[in-house]
């Protein structure tokens, strides 16, 4: 004998339909809350190798997730996690994260490197990483206040070719020395 669940729920009364059957689609907060265990509450990371997501533009988040999903951007866990969501989910997450306030970090930085980085930044990077890295043009990420170890991991991936540099970035970065790049990362890490 087989019974339909809906009929059964009606008969028993007390055992109503599960909450899930009638639930609304997940909100942006429901999606983003799950990320906070690694990326921090309100998009602010406390872990030096993990990026803060707060204040990133919607476009930056959507493009990053698409590149993780396709494998174009190298990752450990993100390539798999990105496959758990749709393009619409990426957009909802990006929309929410873009409204969160920049997460200011306090890091031990070399003042001389910060100053040198500042002198290099305007001529080389500021057309895309605007306002000292507090804003990003189109899908360029916000870099202000990101942790130095995170920035270094990303720069190493750019330099060894595992992460593809946008053409305009390659034009600027390739001629630079390691010392210059290190100074630039110190500068961006210092911006609050």
């Amino acid at each position, binding site marked *: *004998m*087989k*019974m*339909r*669940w809906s009929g*059964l729920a009606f008969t*028993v009364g*007390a*055992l109503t339909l*599960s*909450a*899930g*059957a*009638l*639930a*609304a*689609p*997940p*909100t942006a*907060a*429901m*999606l983003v*809350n*799950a*990320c*906070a*265990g*690694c*990326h*921090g*509450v309100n998009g602010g*990371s*406390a*872990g*030096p*190798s*993990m990026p803060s997501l707060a204040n990133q533009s919607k476009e930056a988040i959507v493009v990053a997730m698409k590149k993780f999903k396709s494998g174009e951007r190298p990752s*450990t*866990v993100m390539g*798999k*996690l990105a*496959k*758990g*969501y749709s393009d619409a989910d990426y957009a909802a997450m990006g929309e929410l994260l873009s409204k969160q306030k920049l997460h200011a970090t306090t890091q031990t930085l070399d003042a001389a490197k910060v100053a040198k980085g500042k002198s290099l930044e305007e001529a080389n990077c500021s057309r895309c990483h605007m306002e000292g890295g507090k804003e990003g043009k189109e899908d360029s990420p916000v870099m202000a206040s990101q942790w130095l*170890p995170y920035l270094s*991991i990303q720069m190493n991936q750019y330099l060894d070719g595992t992460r593809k540099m946008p053409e305009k970035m390659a034009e600027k970065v390739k001629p630079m020395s390691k010392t210059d790049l290190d100074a630039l990362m110190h500068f961006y890490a210092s911006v609050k």
Partner: protein
Amino acid sequence: MTLDRRSFIKLIGSASAVSLAGCAGAPAVQMANEIMPKTSRRVVVVGGGYGGTIAAKYIRMMDKSIEVVMVERSDHYVSCPFSNLYLGGILKDLSPLTIKYDKLVANHGIKMVQAEVTGVSAEGKFINTSKGSIRYDHLVLSPGIDFRLDEMKGYDAAAMEVMPHAWKAGPQTVLLRKQLEAMKDGGTVVLTIPLAPFRCPPGPYERTSMIAYYLKKHKPKSKIIVLDANPGIVSKAPLFTKGWKKHYEGIIDYRPAKKVTEVDAKSKAVLVEGVEDVRGDVVNVIPPQKAGHIAHVAGVVGEDKKWCPVDPTTFESTLHKGIHVIGDACVAGAMPKSGYAANSEAKVCATNIVNMMNGREIVDMSGINTCYSYLTDKEAIHVTGVYKVDKEKNVIVAVPGSVGIPPDLNELDAIYADSWLRNILIEMST
């Protein structure tokens, strides 16, 4: 979804058992002296670990008009994740894994009661604690695990002091490390693993790796015998196998399908299926597990007498309305019994409790698990996944393609794992 007649009768049976509880079956829980009389809408959260802290915090973050009372017997919490690194000698002490609650409760206006929960009345909507009774509108239980000691003959409280489990981080973890340090070079460590499911599926294998790491470095003539009740390594199997071959050949003696059913504390021996006698200088017994004690007191443990069946969208018990169970204690479908899963479940549960209390629509769950295991001080591995509810089956499933392990042991996973710990503990404690 269709049900056959037998399941139908089972369901009816359990439904009537629920309605009778308090009149005929178990004696009704009596209210003691009420502390903190309820003047507004209130959620009581029991447990201050990976699940409880997050449920309490997120309810307050989402609706400040709901009072949240967190009941926890201790004034601090020691994380199980990363405690194997302490056993490996990589962490000097447990302080990086220890959180206090003062900042969490102050930042979010959570009311903290340090007390033991002694009773739960689902009908009366109150709990009894060692300090008195507390009423609630919704109750969240995040009690973690307890042990099925009836399946491990001889493993009583005294035996635990000789052969530690160290499966709840704290004094037991410290005891196991002291024993490893006191062991002579050339000694044998025995580690026993129960049948799945248990807290932290890769945990026993990370522990094996970390103990082997310690032995290789400090006591290279020693070895570790692993008696696993399961037919093979339960989680991240290819990578543990690879890592053990790469780093610990001749140190780890892994024996699958060896179910330990009895221990003898005097001779530091364990019995496999009551017959084979394996002795060690240090014996780490990880016993079979079940939902934490409070879940049994509350009557939210299922027919298996082990774990708590819940609605996968609200984490509300299918046995008692108004009581939600999260973390290791609940049956969360495909989500593993991990710290990150408890964190994720707590947020889903908090969101939908706030929705329920405000008469708003319930929202679909979306969860993540990310879990790291160390093989050495520098190399680690991960498993990760995204989870949602399959509406046909009403069960939590993994989103296809999102679950997986890395191609090899790698240093980046160890670096990210460290940040994982920092972020998740700060999320729990601030």
